[in-house]
């Protein structure tokens, strides 16, 4: 069969495909999960991903930008898959979720450090499940004889004592906002951010009544509308630095966002250095390289940095 390159799109998914006689490469973007942040478009080494801004809805709410991927440029490397904080992109080979770039140590995995000590959980507490803005946490209970219960409101006190609480986090889709950690009354959950950075909103530059950033932010509580000045402010504790807000912000410099560090598995790879450079800044990559002692790579980054600055 001749090589087929396909691009299919519907309301919920965008699919790119290489159909070869013996192999099938497929990239699926789940639009329900995608928040229109800038991570994939910055990370893509082939610059195949573009964000398309969407018009406001009838009631004046800002809409999240739509991700579009150019079939001719995409090489199905899966870097977008690895870095998407919300797990919206999947790359498969012959239907299997295989990441060659990780296997060949050309690219690290994003570290989502989420630890749950469910043994400490009070049986009645579902605070984390309620708190998660993306509904990725599921609390369940296990009886001593191994039965899993979904609901314990009608369970007798006798039985309750023997129940074991399970807290399941859908890690692949978790951007690590830490809201669950803060909401947990017992300190059962411990979350470390995957992306670190700085976000600033300069209210004096914000147009009156503009709350576009707030409209698109997927993390409830990372941005909030201040009662005093009717402007949007940041709560950096919960921000995941995905940049969905920055994409829609209508005024230059009203919203500043910089990523400084990305938690990842150890790697030595030019592809990662470049991705980090684009996602964070050349400065951040030099820091990381210094820490690793990769002097040659460091040198090359600095050269590029100087060239760009001049």
């Amino acid at each position, binding site marked *: *069969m*001749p*090589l*087929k390159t396909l691009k299919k799109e519907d309301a919920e998914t965008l699919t790119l495909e*290489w*159909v*070869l*006689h*013996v*192999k099938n490469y497929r990239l699926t973007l789940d639009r329900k999960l995608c928040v229109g942040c800038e991570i994939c478009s910055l990370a893509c*080494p*082939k610059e195949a991903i573009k964000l398309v801004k969407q018009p406001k809805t009838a009631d004046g709410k800002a809409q999240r930008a739509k991700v579009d991927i150019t079939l001719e440029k995409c*090489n199905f*490397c899966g*870097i977008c898959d690895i870095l998407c904080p919300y797990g919206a992109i999947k790359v498969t080979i012959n239907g299997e979720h295989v990441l*060659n*770039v990780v*296997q*060949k*140590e*050309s*690219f690290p995995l994003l570290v989502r450090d989420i630890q749950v000590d469910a043994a400490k959980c009070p049986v009645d507490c579902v605070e984390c499940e309620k708190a998660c803005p993306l509904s990725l946490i599921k609390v369940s209970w296990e009886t001593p004889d191994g039965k899993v219960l979904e609901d314990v409101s009608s369970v007798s006190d006798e039985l309750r004592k023997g129940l074991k609480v399970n807290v399941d986090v859908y890690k692949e889709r978790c951007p690590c906002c830490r809201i669950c950690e803060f909401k947990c009354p017992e300190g059962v959950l411990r979350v470390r951010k995957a992306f670190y950075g700085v976000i600033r909103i300069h209210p004096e530059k914000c147009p009156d009544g503009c709350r576009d950033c707030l409209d698109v932010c997927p993390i409830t509580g990372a941005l909030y509308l201040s009662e005093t000045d009717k402007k949007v402010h940041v709560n950096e504790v919960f921000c995941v630095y995905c940049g969905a807000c920055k994409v829609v912000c209508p005024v230059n410099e009203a919203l500043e966002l910089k990523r400084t560090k990305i938690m990842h598995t150890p790697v*030595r*790879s*030019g*592809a*990662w250095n*470049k991705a980090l450079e684009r996602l964070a800044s050349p400065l951040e990559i030099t820091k990381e390289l210094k820490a690793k002692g990769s002097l040659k790579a460091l040198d090359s980054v600095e050269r590029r940095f100087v060239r760009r600055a001049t």
Partner: protein
Amino acid sequence: MAEKNEAQTQQKPEELRIGVFICHCGLNIAGVIDIKELVEYAKTLPDVVYVKDNRYTCADPGQEEIRKAIKEHRLNRVVVAACSPRMHEVTFRRTVSEAGLNPYLFEMANIREFSSWCHPSTPKEATEKAKDLIRMAVAKARLLMPLQTIEVPVTNKALVIGGGIAGMNAALDLAEMGFKVYLLEKSESIGGHMAQLDKTFPTLDCSICIEGPKMVDVGRHPNIEIISYADLLSVSGFIGNFKVRIRKNPRYVIAENCTGCGECKDVCPIEYPNEWDMGLGTRKAISVPFDQAVPLVYTINRDYCIECYKCVDACGARQAINFDQKPEEIELEVGAIIVATGYDIYLPYDNPLYGYGRYTNVITSLEFERLILAAGPTGGKVVRASDGQKPHSVAFIQCVGSRDTNKYPYCSNFCCMYTLKHVVQLKEKYKEDIEVYVFYMDMRTNFKGFEEFYQRARELGVNFIRGRVSRIFEDPKTKNLIIHAEDANLGMPIEVEAEMVVLATAAIPKKGSEEIARILNLTRGADGFFMESHPKLKPLDSPTDGIFLAGACQGPKDIPYSVSQGCGAAARAATVLSKKTWKIEPIIAVVDPSKCRNVTTKCGICAERCPYGAIKIEEKKPAQVVTAMCHGCGTCAAECPADAIQQMHFTDAQILAQLRTALEKDPEDKILAFLCNWCSYAGADLAGTSRFEYPPTIRPIRVMCSGRVDRDFVLEAFRLGAGMVLVAACHLPYDCHYISGNWKMKARMDALAPMLHKLGLSPERFRVEYISAAEGVKFAELIREMTEQLRALGKERIKAENEKLRPILENMLKRKEKR
């Protein structure tokens, strides 16, 4: 060289002493024509100091008489009235030069083919015509100038463009002869299509097993330098002295450091569809297209590479990888070029009948080739793309695109045979487990061992169905294909279900042929393949001297044919390369810089019309003829609005002298004809040798190409009162021996004819005709027809028309002289 010829033009001729030799040719001439009368007549012609008749002038005694007469009578021009110059001009040129005379001071009057043989029943008129022919020859002889054969130095290195089987053989043969050869290859490895094939027909030997060693030989030969992954940018110069610019594309791997170990490939995380596998399988972003690649140098495809630099680490101390590599331009000097750029396979996406690209289990033969190949993406398993299962029935469809008037009207030559190979392979591999159908128009098995191979396929139980496929449908559930066809033997429509369909698609001109044709000044036929200089006698020569063709770039060819052409082209190229200098006939164009209009205004008409791109134009400078590129058609001389260009040996003055002499007496009764040397003159010769009789009304003037016929010649002929004027050329579109001289003549005459009609000339009095060297009958018939028309018009009417025309024509010709 050009200056030398100019000097020759300006040389003041010494006192003219012309010798005329009239041949009896046994009774061939003397049987019809009164030779005595001719001799007496010739003596009366101006500047003729010696006339002699011979029984056979071309025989040794005849030649000796010429040599003797030149010495004894101090002859400085020689005219031989005998047979066609196409027959013996070369002989007599040699004769006169042996006597110390410049060979170009010789002229021939064709009184055999053009008089005695074609007018046997009118001896009186034949004799009169012979007198005219001799008079015309003498008139031209008086203006002849000595010319020196031009010699250009030869660089004895060659460039072979294309590293397929034809190009490789050409390169190897030349290298073995001791010439340095540059082998230019566009892709990463040499090998061409043959390296993609599994087996070869009809012997079923493994393709890469026989080609691989040859590729290695090419790679190792001390006289061959492979320049792969590179593009041809431009070629300038001429035979023996080509300057070639080439761009080496960056591989991002330093060829000298790469050992071909493949460790980089192992660590590379990125795969992309392998074009070598027709996109059936994948290759790494750093890889070689196939294991036997020559040169074995890896290439990084930056379209897919993510620059993780894992390959750099793997390569380590060898330091072969360089991401900063830039395209590099190089310049080569070569004496000859062999074009062996090969062909492409037609992918029938645009033909909805077969469902290629739409139905998963419809593939092309080349894709099938990659499937059945053990080193291919499936490891030699023939499997369907839809379910990965081996098909139990396979249908082969022939002539997809080929022999199709809507697509490619030609036969693609090797499809019948490779399909036979495929069916034999399938049958021998899977035996009873597979049913094979072949839908064909004709089975063409016309070479050694081919028919026997066809027999073998039939004995294996393959179903051969003669008939065209009208449509293919896919069963959406099973993905099987339902083929609707006509069985011509049964005379009824049939339906066959097959699990896989293989299309034998047309071989088409290589992508980029147009660019190559432009760079090398090659012509392409209607089918898009390169045209040879002569389809029968110069099948390996391109129209440009020093550039030769080999293999499928000139038309689809199988392997042995391509190999022979490669070797043949090498031998042709060696005829140039083995010489220190190359001789060029001096009948070339020469520009008179004092007349050239380009000095004062922007002109460049000559450069535009030259079929060979042999004229160079620079602003405010006279046009320059590149001597070695000029083929001497004279088109530029005819086109030049200022008459600043002369074609040596066919100058305006010489042709006008012939023309005026021909029309001296009773011009109204005569048809003045311009015949091109290669077709029409040869056709007229054939009319003579075939003894087709026609009226002796025609007075022919030989030009090398019809493109030489200046419109002023036509005007002058009518001014002098010619009854009719005929311009005869090679057939359109491709017969011209100077690529397109006939087209240039046509454009010129198409503009002239209506103007003459408007001025009152009867349309039948000015004819443009196309007569091939084989059309003696046509020529004779044409002259008969024209003579009848001439008589029907009547002398009086012609004279009346001429009276009206003359002052206008005189004015037109004078105006030009003034300018």
